[in-house]
């Protein structure tokens, strides 16, 4: 399981726009880098990131090799109701890394 760091406010007022910061450890190997023998290291990146809010998608990112290693993505969403923000990162092999954060909206 890759290490992740998520920053979501614990509470918010209804209708408030909140900023969400996400960081995940991943080499984002571009596929263009030669190793010591001169052979290209195969591509291995996270190509998709999705955030759902109580199961409704509120943000999605399609990522390419030009995104830096240990991808950082920060975006915003409207605090509509209390519940769960779920984050998934998908890599080229189809592997999914998942995290959750709860929010209380008054």
């Amino acid at each position, binding site marked *: 399981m890759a*290490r*992740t*760091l998520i*920053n979501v406010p614990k509470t918010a007022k209804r209708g408030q726009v909140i900023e969400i*910061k996400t*960081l*995940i*450890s991943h*080499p984002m190997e571009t596929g263009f880098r030669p190793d010591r023998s001169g052979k290209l290291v195969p591509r291995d990146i996270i190509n998709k990131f999705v955030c759902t809010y109580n199961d409704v998608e509120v943000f999605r990112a399609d990522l390419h090799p030009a995104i*830096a*290693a*240990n991808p*950082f993505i*920060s975006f915003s969403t409207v605090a509509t109701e209390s519940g769960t923000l779920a984050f998934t990162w998908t890599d080229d092999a189809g592997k999914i890394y998942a995290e959750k954060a709860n929010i209380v909206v008054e």
Partner: protein
Amino acid sequence: MGRHFRIVERTLRAVIFPIVVVATPAFAAEIPPSEKRSGYFFMSRETQAMQDDLTANPGMLSVLDGEALWSRKAGAADRACADCHGDASASMKGVAARYPAFDATRGRPINLDQRINSCRAERQQATPLPYESKDLLALSAYVATQSRGMPVTPPDDPRLERFREAGRAFYEVRQGQLNLACGHCHDDNWGKRLAGALIPQAHPNGYPIYRLEWQSVGSLQRRLRNCLIGMRAEHFDYGAPEYVDLELYLAWRGRGLPVEAPAVRP
């Protein structure tokens, strides 16, 4: 002993340093305290921001890994760091700020990575972690960050003196194909540019750092090795006493600067 100008120095000055450098046998004296600056000050605003925001600092991923390892039982003794040291934010506060420190068993100074491995071998009866391994860097980052904000405070221990002087001698000797000493860049030309990069003063207060060039966290030894390779000088294996002596000297030279681990550096 006369210092005659050599072709290499004239070419160096013309090619590498944008400003004429007078090649004197001794450097300017130690950087005066009022001019002592962490590598932080030589970075762009954006990179500084990356370091300051602990919710976005990539080094924090390593710190989080270290936090998990701190509580994980290991070795034949089936013991976690936490079992002896409890809450790291209390027990490890100030520790990284005073390393390298003297180790009576070895009769010489050791750095934080070596201290962690000593504990693993002796108290946990676990195999030491390889230098620059993900786990050792994570534990080192986790322990070091407990001193974040505190001044680098080398121990006032007379047993360290001759090792610190050995470190100083290494810092001041000309080495390698480019015939440069550390001080030529970091005492005489800090703040100026070398091939487009700003030269910092070479203080150890940020380590272990997330280096943008490495795209990962790395130790001070990795950086020293990197420098020696760049200078086309002989470099040593990880754990070499030459590195620890130099780290000891650099800690003294950078004393008073705040620990910034995990720092971000270009």
